[in-house]
């Protein structure tokens, strides 16, 4: 018997040693995506409402509530992470996205390795296996990405258009990935066109955001929503703002926030739960400045939010506190230049200001807040770049900035791993513009380049910005 017990123990020990470490985050992301990717399960098929089933339905609702509570209990960290950092890495002109965390992946300081000394763009990923190019479901060969949004390391969407389309403007196209950008599938798009009209009212779209696997919006200046993962889209009008042009949209903590230009003198903010279209218009009005082209940037982190308006110089702002938008004087209000914001969490807000751009240029300066934007203090030396176009803060210590290099006209991406004290170049994409820069996790980020003379390109990094891979569709 002793020999049997020894053998049992040896088997157990060997199996324990052979067993791998926990399942990779990628697997959890893939499984979480299943209900969206395969919505037609045979489970709990929805029955047509009928009186005899009322009790069953309500009982099921009660059970579901228990299940939700259980899920939140068992997966507390995961759910909390998701709920606090819903806004995905998404593209918009003159917008830097707040960082997001995947359900199974937590961002933490110090996880990023030092900036590389050698800039590297690795060969592109294999193109997606797709239907025949002639199929209406195929991604066009000349597909141009314009806006990107990820809700986890694996699940993301891109809004784009077919450069070879026969109409002008081109119809909007939406593609989706469930494997972190390695393969893409075309899905339904809102029945409208890609728009370049800026703040002029219309129903075209230029940007895309998803809050989760089901709820997403295409906007700018029009506003379209999906609540079934992109299978169907519905055009929306914000009550009280007919004909307004949507300038910015982000989602976080179960709510979507929209900034709309009323076509006259002010920006207005409206919000809705992500899963419904129950919009509530804030009483706050952010007046436009005296410049020719007012631009707004909306940054959300958890239940906190910041709106910054540039109109050549910092013109105005608003801050979301306890669910209410309040008037806010942004940083660099008096530096006669524009600013860009990023937030690593609800307290850590970073601003890069182009000091003196419209008076005596003094370069790009970094300001940081540790109290949610109430106060800012200048941090570190002047940045070694000019003309900031995008900023992201994947963690409180990591800041990534896209700007014009100091000695060339080429766009350069620089990163600081120590909160802005030192900077290193991580990518020089060439003489193109960076339309968007954002991070989905502490290590996974996206960047869209644009150039009037060439096609836009979506690049992804999975190592905190050390290497950037062109994405093929």
């Amino acid at each position, binding site marked *: 018997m002793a020999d049997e017990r020894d053998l049992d123990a040896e088997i*157990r*020990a060997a199996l324990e040693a052979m067993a791998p470490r926990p399942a990779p985050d990628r697997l959890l992301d893939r499984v979480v995506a299943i209900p969206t990717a395969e919505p037609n399960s*045979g489970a709990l098929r929805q029955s047509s409402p009928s009186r005899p089933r009322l009790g069953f339905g309500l009982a099921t609702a009660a059970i579901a509530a228990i299940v939700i509570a259980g*899920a939140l209990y068992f997966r507390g960290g995961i759910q909390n992470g998701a709920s606090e950092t819903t806004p995905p890495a998404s593209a918009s002109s003159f917008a830097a996205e707040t960082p997001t965390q995947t359900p199974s992946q937590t961002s933490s300081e110090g996880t990023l390795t030092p900036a590389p000394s050698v800039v590297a763009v690795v060969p592109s990923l294999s193109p997606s296996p797709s239907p025949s190019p002639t199929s209406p479901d195929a991604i066009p060969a000349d597909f141009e990405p314009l806006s990107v949004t990820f809700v986890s390391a694996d699940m993301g969407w891109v809004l784009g258009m077919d450069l070879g389309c026969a109409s002008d403007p081109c119809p909007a196209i939406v593609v989706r990935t469930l494997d972190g950008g390695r393969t893409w599938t075309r899905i339904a798009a809102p029945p409208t066109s890609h728009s370049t009209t800026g703040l002029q009212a219309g129903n075209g779209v230029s940007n895309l955001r998803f809050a989760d696997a089901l709820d997403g919006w295409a906007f700018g200046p029009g506003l379209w929503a999906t609540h079934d993962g992109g299978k169907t889209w519905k055009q929306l009008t914000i009550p009280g703002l007919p004909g307004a042009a949507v300038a910015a949209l982000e989602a976080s903590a179960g709510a979507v926030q929209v900034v709309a230009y009323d076509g006259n003198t002010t920006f207005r903010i409206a919000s809705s739960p992500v899963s419904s279209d129950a919009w509530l218009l804030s009483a706050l009005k952010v007046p436009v400045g005296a410049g020719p082209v007012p631009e707004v940037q909306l940054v959300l982190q958890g239940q906190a939010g910041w709106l910054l308006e540039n109109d050549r110089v910092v013109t105005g702002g608003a801050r979301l506190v306890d669910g209410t938008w309040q008037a806010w004087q942004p940083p660099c209000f008096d530096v006669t230049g524009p600013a860009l914001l990023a937030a690593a969490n609800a307290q850590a807000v970073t601003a890069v200001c182009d000091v003196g751009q419209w008076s005596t240029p003094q370069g790009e300066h970094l300001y940081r807040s540790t109290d949610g934007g109430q106060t800012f203090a200048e941090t570190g030396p002047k940045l070694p770049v000019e003309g900031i176009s995008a900023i992201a803060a994947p963690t409180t210590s990591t800041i990534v900035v896209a700007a014009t290099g100091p000695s060339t006209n080429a766009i350069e991406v620089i990163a600081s791993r120590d909160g802005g004290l030192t900077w290193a170049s991580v990518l020089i994409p060439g003489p193109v513009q960076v339309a968007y820069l954002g991070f989905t996790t502490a290590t996974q980020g996206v960047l869209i380049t644009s150039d009037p003379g060439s096609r836009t390109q979506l690049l992804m990094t999975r190592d905190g910005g050390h290497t950037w891979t062109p994405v093929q569709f």
Partner: protein
Amino acid sequence: MAVKEIEIRELRRASTVMETDRSTAFAHFVDGAALDRAYRYATLILGDPADAEDATHDAALRAWHRFGELRDPTRFDAWFGRILVNACRDRQRGRRHETLSLDDPAFPTEGPWLGVATDPAEGVGRRQAMAAALRVLRPEHLEVVVLRFYLDLTIDQIAERTGARAGTVKSRLHYALRELRGTLDEDSQKEQGNG
């Protein structure tokens, strides 16, 4: 507002909750801990982490499609476990049986050792010998060994997951242990011969 309207609204709300929380319930059951267990089992059976990941994903996908068959939530582990066993078998059918290489960095050479050896070096050697012996077991034998000694399932539970009768499970375990013992003895004799 008429009573009927209220009822219809409640019905719609309840239906929406059902539909929405089908995925929430699925996510609850197939949570991180369940996936960890499933992934570890699949890796032990298939030997390859990438295959294990795909098999676990396959199992989760099948579970989602058949979620309506799960009438008793307390039976989820057994129900999902059987789906997983079948997903791993499907993977095995498509390829030659392989397992973790001892050279694989995933195979630790240090760590807690529950064996009988008192000499640490001997312990590592025995553990590696056992791992090597496990690698060459027939798939159906490895299956019951992992279910019994890694997941600590009873004979009846193993029978339920594998779809085999309890007697068959006992028989497979018996032959698997005999095989393992024989392989270890053979290795031991070789070492003594070399020494």
